[in-house]
């Protein structure tokens, strides 16, 4: 191969692709980026067998070809070459990068050892705007917990029904659901569980891009494809394995009946919860006491080691007086996902699940189980 390429485009693609590579002694090819020159593009491929990233960079091609070199190493090198344009060529299995005043040679490996990326039929798909998608993923992506017992909840549920997309995650203590209205009715309903790692990569990669992602899927895999803005050629492909199994019937978790609810300034509550969290010790427990008739919320925490903390906040509340305890970290996670100045907290009876929502926005909710008193 022999090409000329803009260094910044190459660097960006490389830095994003490099993140998923792994050093595994049984399959050393996985630490490589496979560089393939075809047509007018340089294609970078990396995979860890769960997530696969393919990235096409427009290049001036003199000769086709293929090399596989360690991805992280290459990225480190390219980050330190301050040139506008790079010349790339292969020499045997090695990659040679030249600029007018520099030359580096990187030891490569046999490209044929690189895993063959599975294809996916492009029959079933739907589309979504990148920013909407990555922001929605960002609200839930940190929630799943790796679980051997229940692998199905260790990923993010992505479900499309007619023109409604729901993105859901839970770790059995809390659950977040984001609802998005898609631009057009997608015809076929679809639902799959995306591994948490893949969801993170999607966020990292697509949050810097604009345009529409097309999402293709089959029972084993899903492909997220962003087309080139300038021409109809894919620019970025992220292929992910899907988690098998059925996602729990999460609608049953969302409570429908409440004994009390309160509306409160978010920032004030966040800072009080943070402060209470400092006093909560290992149990992470902070107690909330809601007295609707006085319009007050008391935040309380105490441990023998640290001392105790108490604060009273004004709020608008309805229903009965309730005392309830939460893990403050979970509560903060929920509050931080809620956009807007005010939040509503709805409480169900008998220490049942509670719901946190932004005021005036029905598209997001965060269900949280309290700590038993």
């Amino acid at each position, binding site marked *: 191969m022999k090409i000329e390429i803009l260094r910044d485009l190459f660097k960006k693609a490389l830095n994003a692709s490099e993140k998923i590579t792994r050093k595994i*002694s049984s399959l050393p090819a996985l630490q490589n980026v496979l560089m393939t020159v075809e047509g007018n593009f340089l294609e970078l491929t990396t995979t860890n067998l769960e997530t696969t990233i393919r990235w096409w960079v427009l290049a001036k091609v003199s000769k086709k070809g293929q090399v596989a070199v360690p991805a992280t190493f290459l990225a480190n090198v390219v980050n330190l070459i301050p040139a506008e344009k790079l010349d790339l060529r292969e020499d045997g299995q090695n990659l040679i990068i030249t600029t007018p005043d520099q030359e580096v040679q990187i030891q490569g490996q046999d490209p044929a*050892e690189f895993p*063959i990326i599975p294809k996916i039929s492009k029959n079933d798909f739907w589309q979504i705007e990148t920013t909407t998608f990555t922001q929605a993923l960002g609200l839930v992506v940190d929630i799943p917990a790796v679980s051997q017992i229940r692998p199905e909840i260790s990923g993010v549920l992505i479900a499309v029904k007619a023109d409604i997309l729901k993105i859901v995650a*839970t770790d059995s203590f809390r659950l977040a659901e984001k609802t998005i209205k898609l631009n057009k009715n997608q015809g076929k309903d679809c639902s799959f569980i995306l591994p948490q790692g893949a969801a993170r990569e999607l966020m990292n990669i697509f949050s810097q891009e604009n345009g529409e992602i097309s999402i293709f899927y089959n029972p084993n895999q899903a492909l997220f494809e962003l087309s080139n803005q300038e021409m109809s050629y894919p620019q970025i492909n992220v292929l992910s394995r899907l988690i098998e199994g059925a996602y*729990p019937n999460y609608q049953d*978790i969302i409570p429908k009946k409440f004994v009390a609810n309160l509306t409160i300034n978010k920032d004030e509550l966040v800072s009080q919860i943070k402060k209470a969290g400092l006093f909560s010790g290992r149990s992470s427990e902070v107690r909330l006491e809601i007295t609707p008739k006085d319009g007050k919320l008391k935040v309380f925490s105490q441990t*023998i080691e640290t001392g105790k903390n108490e604060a009273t906040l004004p709020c608008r509340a309805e229903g009965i007086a309730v005392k309830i305890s939460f893990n403050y970290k979970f509560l903060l996670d929920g509050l931080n996902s809620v956009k807007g100045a005010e939040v509503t907290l709805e409480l169900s009876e008998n220490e049942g699940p509670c719901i946190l929502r932004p005021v005036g926005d029905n598209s997001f909710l965060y269900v949280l*189980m309290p700590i*038993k008193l």
Partner: protein
Amino acid sequence: MPFSTIASPKETLPESADSQAAISNEELWQAVLAQIQFSVSRANFATWFRNTQIISNKNGEVLVSVPNSFSREWLGNKYQTAILKILRDLDNNIRLVEFTVDAESEKTKRATEAMSRPTAVFASATETQQQFPELNVNQKTNLNFRYTFESFVVGEFNELAHAASWAVAEAPGVTYNPLFIYGGVGLGKTHLLQATGNRLAALFPKLRVVYSNSERLVSKIVDSIKNQTIGELKNSLSKVDVLIVDDVQFLAGKDKTQEEFFHIFNTLFQNQKQIILSSDRPPNAIPALEDRLRSRFEGGMIADISFPTIESRIAILKSKCEQGGIVLADEILEFLAANIQKNIRDMEGALNRVAALQKINKAAINLADVKKLLHNSLVAPKKATNFKKIIQAVSSFYDLNKEDLLLVTRRKEIVKPRQIAMYLLRQELQESFPSIGRRFQGKDHTTAIYAFEKVTQKIEEDSTLATEVNLIKQRLYSEV
């Protein structure tokens, strides 16, 4: 034989498909692997050939299952020819080899893993951070696997219900059908029902067991009426082998649901499918329940769960302590058991609070601490009732409007609840008879005296009425 219609053996093991083959698929694949290992690097062999197997060998076409899409691409692109060549050497009828990603074998693996879940989940039960209980629910049956017979404490208060449930779990559709279990709030009805369901599912894996509480059933029926899919719902429900419906008293007054449920009930019953129901009162005490449904409910076995004796309550607490690894002095357990008599769930709640206190203190706590901790919850309920609550409880129990109870009328369906309300006002609040009379549109105090005495006397004679009054009292104090 009640099961002849149910169990059609569905096991189509891949091997059985081609029993006439000279060597088994397993041996065939072993032979392939044995040869191919020489032409593949060790690392590649371990990566791409792991968990592969032949799942069918028919008409010269061999289908190999691989664990993921990457393996399929790799084997299909790089080793197809080599594998086919080796296969042909072993059996020259073979002319094609294909690879497929096999999700099935993964699923069976998961299913067996799922069976071993209870222990894993139970370990976290002592943690105070609660989990979503719905996640412990089997999606097919709706049963929560944490409810088992093993964790159910049997005492004389529930031994009949337990024995009947056990019998049903051993031989569904045969002994007691329908089985109707009733008893107060928090005494273990749901536990018993779910344990029966879980045991049935374990003993007879082929039976379709479905558990639902009536609220969910009602909302399902309402939804399906709205979406005009009632036929589908009925169809899917009439295919189950064991239907368990919890808290059927909530069907009261929902006529359309009752009608649909009646049809489902009949279909199942005629096909000798097991039906298990629970309620907080016997069928004849459920108001606004159609007679035909009531008589169906009464047609099988009715077993009650009454209040546990103090010995049973202590036994329950001890078993809870064991499960949760809680260590408490006997006198504390006795105190809890002696003071919370009417609701096992409340008693367990109190136990959890005591355990939490002990955990925070990191030292054994004594009886005085416990008394202080539970002071509010033990004393409060007695004082917490009032006129409004009594009227509310009585009217909701008999499915009346609150206003109806205060009407000046001699309609039979109102007179009895009104007398019970007067009785409760006297008994629970020690109100004077004249003031009770005044509350009911200025009735004379003698009316109140008459009502009180009549109810007192009738409770002695009529056990149904006694149960009803007890249940109303329970609702009165169990509501937060």
